[in-house]
C-alpha cells in the first residue's frame, strides 16, 4: 500500500518540475573548436588545438599551427578551456534505478540465479531524471548492467541523449555479467566473521556445467528444444558477446580467468580490487580489468591505507589494459573523480583520461567509433572550463554526442534557479 502512495507521489510531483531535457537534433552545421587544450583520450594532449567535426564525426584534430580554413564553420572559442572525449561509464545502473530505496523505481535485479537471457536494454529509461545530472559532469556513454545473482544478465551500451532505448544503443547486448561466487562467507555463530565458503566448489561446478552445456548448445545447428538461457550465451562462444566477471579477491580473480579460458573465453575482470597483486598473471593471460570505485576504503585492515588510489598506477605500469568505473546510477556523476583521485598516487594525468575514455571503449569493444578524439570517430566530447578531474576547477560547459550539442541543464539546476530566485525576489 505504501508503494502505491509513493508511486502516486512520483506521478504527481515529477511532472511538475520543468526539467525535461529534450534530446538534441542531428548535427546540422559544421563546428570547429578553437584553442582548447585537447585531451585526446589516447594518452596524447594537444595544447591550443583545433577540433572540427561534421555529420557527427571528428573531421579535424590538430594543432592551431594548421591555421585557418574553417570558413562556414560555426566557431567555438575555447582558449584556456579543456576538451575531453565523452567519459564512458562501464557497469552502471543508469536508467534502471531511479531511486535506490524505492522498489517501484528499481529495475536492475531479476529473480533466479542464472539469468543470461535477461536484457537490460529494454528497461533502460531514457527519461530518467538522474541521467542529465551525470551528463553534466562529462559522462556521455554508459554500459547499462543488470545486478544481483550469479549471472544477473546481459548489458548494453548507450549514449546518454536519446528519445528511447532504441535510439540510445551504441552496442546492444554487449556482454554477459557473471558475479563470481565468493570464496568466503560470513560465520554468524562467530560475530559474523568471514570464513571460507564451504559451498564455493559447488557453486563453481554449477557454473561449469552451465558453460559446458551452453558451449555444446551453441554448436548445435538445429535445436528441437529451444533454451532461452543457452541461446543468450551463444554470443560468448563466437565472440559476439563479452564475459564480464565481477570478482575482487586475488585468488578468485585467478580462478575466474582460468574458468573462462577453459571455454576459450577472454574475460573482462570487473571490480578487480586485488588485481595489483597479480599483474604478471593478468598480463600473461592478456586479461583486461575494469576497477570499481578508486574512492573506496581498502578491503583489509592491514592493507596500505591508500591502496585503492594506487592500484590504477600499478596496472598502468604493468601494461595491463584497464579502465575505471563507479557503481550505481546517480553516483556516475563522480566517475571523473575516480580517475582524478589516482593522479596524486602515481597515475599520469593523460593516462587517467584514457582510463575512462579509450581504455573503457576498448574493453567494451566500442573503440572503433568512440573513446578518443580522433578523425573519423564520433564527435562525442565535452568542454570543461578547468581541469575536469579537480572539483576545485571543474565546470563542464558544453557537451556533444555524435556532434549534437546536448542540453546540460538538469533537474537540480532547475531547482537551484527556482529557489535562488525565491530569495532574490524578497
Amino acid at each position, binding site marked *: 500500500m505504501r508503494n502505491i502512495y509513493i508511486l502516486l507521489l512520483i506521478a504527481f510531483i515529477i511532472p511538475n518540475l520543468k526539467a525535461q531535457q529534450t534530446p538534441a537534433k542531428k548535427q546540422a552545421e559544421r563546428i570547429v573548436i578553437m584553442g582548447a587544450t585537447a585531451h585526446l583520450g589516447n594518452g596524447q594532449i594537444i595544447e591550443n588545438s583545433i577540433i572540427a567535426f561534421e555529420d557527427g564525426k571528428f573531421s579535424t584534430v590538430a594543432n592551431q599551427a594548421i591555421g585557418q580554413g574553417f570558413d562556414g564553420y560555426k566557431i567555438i572559442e575555447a582558449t584556456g578551456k579543456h576538451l575531453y572525449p565523452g567519459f564512458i561509464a562501464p557497469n552502471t545502473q543508469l536508467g534502471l534505478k531511479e531511486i535506490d530505496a524505492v522498489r517501484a523505481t528499481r529495475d536492475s535485479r531479476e529473480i533466479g540465479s542464472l539469468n543470461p537471457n535477461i536484457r537490460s536494454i529494454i528497461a533502460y529509461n531514457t527519461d530518467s531524471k538522474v541521467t542529465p545530472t551525470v551528463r553534466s559532469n562529462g559522462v556521455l556513454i554508459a554500459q547499462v548492467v543488470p545486478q544481483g545473482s550469479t549471472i544477473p544478465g546481459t548489458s548494453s551500451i548507450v549514449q546518454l541523449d536519446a528519445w528511447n532505448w532504441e535510439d540510445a544503443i551504441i552496442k546492444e547486448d554487449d556482454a554477459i555479467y557473471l558475479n563470481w561466487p565468493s570464496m568466503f562467507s560470513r560465520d554468524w555463530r562467530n560475530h559474523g566473521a568471514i570464513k571460507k565458503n564451504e559451498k564455493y566448489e559447488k557453486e563453481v561446478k554449477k557454473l561449469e556445467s552451465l558453460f559446458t552445456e551452453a558451449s555444446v548448445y551453441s554448436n548445435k545447428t538445429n535445436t528441437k528444444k529451444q533454451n532461452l538461457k543457452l541461446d543468450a550465451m551463444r554470443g560468448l562462444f563466437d565472440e559476439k558477446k563479452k564475459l564480464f566477471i565481477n570478482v575482487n579477491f586475488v585468488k578468485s580473480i585467478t580462478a575466474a580467468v582460468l574458468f573462462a579460458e577453459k571455454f576459450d573465453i577472454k574475460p573482462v575482470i570487473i571490480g578487480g580490487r586485488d588485481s595489483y597483486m597479480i599483474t604478471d598473471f593478468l598480463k600473461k593471460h592478456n586479461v583486461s580489468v575494469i576497477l570499481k570505485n578508486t574512492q573506496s576504503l581498502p578491503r583489509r585492515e*592491514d592493507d596500505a591505507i591508500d591502496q585503492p588510489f594506487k592500484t590504477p598506477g600499478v596496472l598502468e605500469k604493468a601494461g595491463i589494459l584497464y579502465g575505471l568505473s563507479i557503481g550505481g546510477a546517480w553516483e556516475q556523476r563522480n566517475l571523473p573523480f575516480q580517475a582524478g583521485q589516482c593522479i596524486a598516487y602515481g597515475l599520469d594525468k593523460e593516462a587517467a583520461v584514457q582510463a575512462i575514455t579509450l581504455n573503457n571503449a576498448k574493453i567494451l569493444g566500442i573503440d572503433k567509433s568512440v573513446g578518443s578524439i580522433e578523425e573519423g570517430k564520433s564527435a562525442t566530447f565535452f568542454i570543461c572550463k578547468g581541469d575536469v578531474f579537480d572539483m576545485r576547477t571543474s565546470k563542464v560547459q558544453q557537451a556533444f554526442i555524435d556532434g549534437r550539442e546536448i542540453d546540460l541543464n538538469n533537474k537540480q539546476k532547475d*531547482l537551484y534557479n527556482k529557489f535562488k530566485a525565491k530569495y532574490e525576489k524578497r
Partner: protein
Amino acid sequence: MKHFFSFIFLFLIVQTGYSQITFPRNGVYDDRDGIYAFKNATIHKAPGQVLNNATLVIKEGKIEAVGTGVSIPDGAVEIDLKGKHIYPSFIDIYASHGMPEINKKDGPRNRGIQQMISNKEGPYSWNEALRTEFRAHEKFKADAKTANGWIKAGFGAISSHQMDGISRGSASLISLADKNEHEVILKDITAHHFSFKKGSSKQGYPGSLMGAIALLKQTNIDSDWYKNHGHKIEKNLSLKAWDELKSVPQIFAVSDKLEALRVLKMGQETKDKFIIKGSGDEYQRLEELKKWNPTFILPLNFPKAYDVVDPYDALLVSLGDMKHWELAPSNPGLLEKAGMEFAFTTDGLKEKGALLKNIQKAIKNGLSEDTALKALTTIPAKIIKCADIVGTLEKGKVANFLITSGKIFGKKTKIYENWVMGIQSVLKPMDIPDLSGEYLLTYGKEKIPLKVKGANDPKMVLVKNDTTDIKVKHSYSNGLISLSFSPDEDKEEIISLSGVVEDKMWSGRGTLNNGEWINWRSVYAKELEPEKNDKKKEENKKDNGKKEKSKKSKKDIKGKITYPFMAYGWETAPEQATYLITNATVWTNEEDGILEEADVLISNGKIKKVGKGLSAGGGTEIDGTGKHVTSGIIDEHSHIAISKGVNECTQANTAEVSIADVVNSEDINIYRQLSGGVTVSQLLHGSCNPIGGRSALIKLRWGLQPEEMKMKNADGFIKFALGENVKKSRSDRNNRFPDSRMGVEQVYMDAFTRAREYKANASDPTRRKDLELEVVNEILDSKRFVTCHSYVQSEINMLMHVAEQFGFKINTFTHILEGYKVADKMKKHGAAGSSFSDWWAYKFEVIDAIPQNGEIMNQQGVLVGFNSDDAEMARRLNQEAAKAMMYGDISEEEAWKFVTLNPAIMLHIDDRVGSLKAGKDGDVVLWSDHPLSIYAKAEMTFIDGIKYFDRTEDAKIQAAIQTERARLIRKMLAAKKGGAPTQGVKGKHHHHYHCDDHEDELSH
C-alpha cells in the same frame, strides 16, 4: 591400547553419614563416618603453604585435620601417600553445569515487526533479557555425567548460573559430588551474573551495546525506587530480585577488553565493583584496565594457529589476529605482573581436559605456578565469598582435594584421584606395579622373549628376531592382566591371554587363533638393557640440547604489544613536541585569510603563533615551501569508531543511550581518516528514531583508549531524526510508532511535555528517576544540543516550530538536503546546516536534493558545513568542500570553512579548534597541494601538537606490517609442521556504519 590405563575411570561411592535426614529410607541404614587419613603426603594446604610428610584427615565429607603432627583418629581408613602430593580441588566460578536448558524459541525475529515487551508470564521485568529473578539453587539439577567431566579435569566445586540474558540472575556454589540436589548446593547465592547478550529474549530492546548499558543503568535505579516506593504501586519480581542481589558479587561477562573498560566505568555509576569474566585479550589494554583495579575471571581458550599455508588465504587473517595468536598465552602472566587478581575458568574450552595443558602454556609464557594455583582455588573462592567453604585444605572446609604424582603443573604429573566431598574418584590408579623388565613368555609350545618398557603406561613387545618386534596389546587392573597379539603380522591370527600377576610371574589361560585353549606364563628374566638405539638417542639429545637452546632463544622472540592492537598500531605512542612549519600557504580561517609564505608554530599542544619569520625555538622545523597548512578537518556527522550498533532502533525515543558508552578506539578508520586530514569527529547515533541517542565528540587520537579520545568539557549533543528512517520506510512492515511524519511530530510533543512534567515533579521523593526524561530535560534547558537528521522542508519546518514552542533551538540540521528551500526559516530560527555535497536519489525523500544546497544556505546566512556520514568519504572531505565550488558559486575560503571552522562552531568548540589562531589546539594539517584540490594529500596531521600521521612514516609502517605478518606466518607454519592444531582462516567483518544501519551488512 597403550592408553588403556588412562581410560580407567573408577567411581567409588563411599556412603557418608550426612545423607538427607528428612528423607524416608527404604532398607537398612548404612551411614558410615567416612573417616580417612592420608599420610606421608606433601600437602599443598593453600597456594604457597606446603607441608611435607603431612597428614590429612577427613570425616563426613569435611576436612577434619591437616598437618604434620596430626594424630590419626580411631576408625580411620589409612592411606599412605608417600611421594605423592595433595592439592585442593579446583573451582570454576563461570559455569552453567546443572542449569536448565535455555529455551531457544524457533524462528527468526520478524523483520519490521518487533516484540515491544516481555513475553514472560507473571509480574516480571518489562524486558525479557532481564532475568534477575532466576535463582540457580532453585533450578539446579544434579547430573553425574557432566559432573564426571568436571571431576576428571580436577574440579571439586563450581559456581553455576544460567547463561541467558543481560541480567542472568544468581549463581550457586555446587559440589560436584554424585549426590542429589539436597546435598550438593554449598551456597545458594554466590553472584549476580551479567552479559551484553540478550540470549533467548527476542524482544527488540536493547538492540545495541549502548542500549544494554542504558538498560542496566536504568534498571539499577528502578530497583532502588521499587524498594522504596514502587512496590506500593506495582508488583515487579525482577526489580525485587535485583535488589536482593545487590549485595552479592556482580560478575559481568564481556567479549573484549573495551567492553571490560565499559563495564568498569558503568560500575562507577551503578556503584558496583564488577568482577569481569574476561575475553583473554586484556593484555592489549592492560594499563587502562589496571587503573580500575578489577578482578578477572580469565578464559584459557588460546586461539589455535591459523592455517596459512596458502598465502592468498592468509590475507584474510588480520595482523591483529595473528599477533593475538602469539601473545594470548602471555595474557595471564602479564596480568600477574601488573598485579591484577584473577581466577581461571574453563569456559570457552572445548575440552575441560585442556585446562592444565593451557595453564602450562601460560606458565611457559610468564605466569607463576603459585598464581596459577591461586587462580584455580583461593581466588575463585574469594571472588564469590566462599573462602570459608572451599579453596584450601583447612579444618571445616569441604573435603575437595586432588592426589597427584608430583607438582600439579608439572608436565609429567598425573592426577591420581579427585576427592569431592569426601568421595573418591580415581582418575588413574595409584597402585600399578612396575612391570618393566625382560620376560620369557611361554604359551602352548611357543617360547618368546617379552619386553615390558616403562613403569607407567608400559609398552610391551615380543622379540621375534633381531629385526621384528611384535606389539602386544595389554591391560592391567588390580592384579589381573590380559595380553593379545598376532605372532605373524602378515596373517590375521590372534592370540589372547588372560591371567594374574603374582610377584615376577604372570600366568593363566588363553586361546590360540583356532580357539584352542592353552596355558601360558611369563617369567621375569632380568632388567631391561638400555637399547643401542636408546643410547644413541640420548647422546643425540645431549647434542640437540645445545642446538635446541639456541633455537629456543630464537623462538622466543615475540611481537610487541601495539596500541591499538592491530596493523598501524603504535609500539610507542607519538609525543607532543614543538613544530614550526615554515614558508607555506597558511589558511587561517581568521580575518587574516590565506597567508602566503607564512609560518605556523605549534608548541605545548597549542598553536603558538601564525605569521612570518617565526623561530622554532629548538623545535622541529618542517619546510612547508609549496605546501599548504590548515586547521584539521572536523566531521560533524561520523559513525566510525563505534562498537556494536550505531542505532538503538527499538523505541521512538532512546535519549537514554549514548555513543559515548561505546566508543571504539580500535577502528582502523581512525588512522585512515587522519590520512585525510580529519582531526575531530562527532560520533552520532543513527537515524532510526525521532529522539536518538547522545553523541560522542572525539579527537582522532589514534592509539589512545576510548576515554582519552573524547574531547573534555565540550557541550553534549543528541541525535534527532525525521522522515523515512524514523518511519522505518525500508521495511515492508512496521509496528513501531511513528509510521508517518504526522506521528513524528507527536513523538516530540509527547517527549517534551512529559519531560516538563517530570521536571515539575522534581521535589516528589517518590518520583522514579528516568534517564531518558532527564536527557530530554537537558535539551529543554539548552544544556544539550540537537543535531537533527532531516531531508524534507515540511519536517524541518515542523521541528523548528516544536522547538520554539518549548523554548529551545535546534542547533544543527544534518543532511538537510532541502535546506535550500527553507534557508530563510533556518536562519531566523538560528539553526545550522550540516550537509552532503552531492548525494541524492538514494531514497525518495532526497529526490529534491541539489549540490548547490550548501551555497544557497550559506548565502542566506545559515552556518553551513559538509559532513561525511561515511567512513570512506570522511577521508576526502576536502574534496567534498570543493564540490560546493564546482556546483555553486562560492569562494575558496568559504568552501574550506564548510569542513573546518563551520562545523567547529556548530559543535561549540570553535574556541579551541577550527582555525589557525594562537592559543587554539594544535590540530594542524600539512597538505602537499591546495587543500581543496583532488591532488592534495595530507602529509602530516597533528592533534594537540602530537603528530599522529606522517605520510613518510606511514610508508615505513606499511613495510613493517608486511615484515611482521611474514614473521607470524612463518611461525604459524612452523607450529603446524610441529603438529600444533590449526584453525581455518578467518577475517573480521568491518562495520562501516551509516545513519540507517540497524543490521549487519553482508559484504565480500
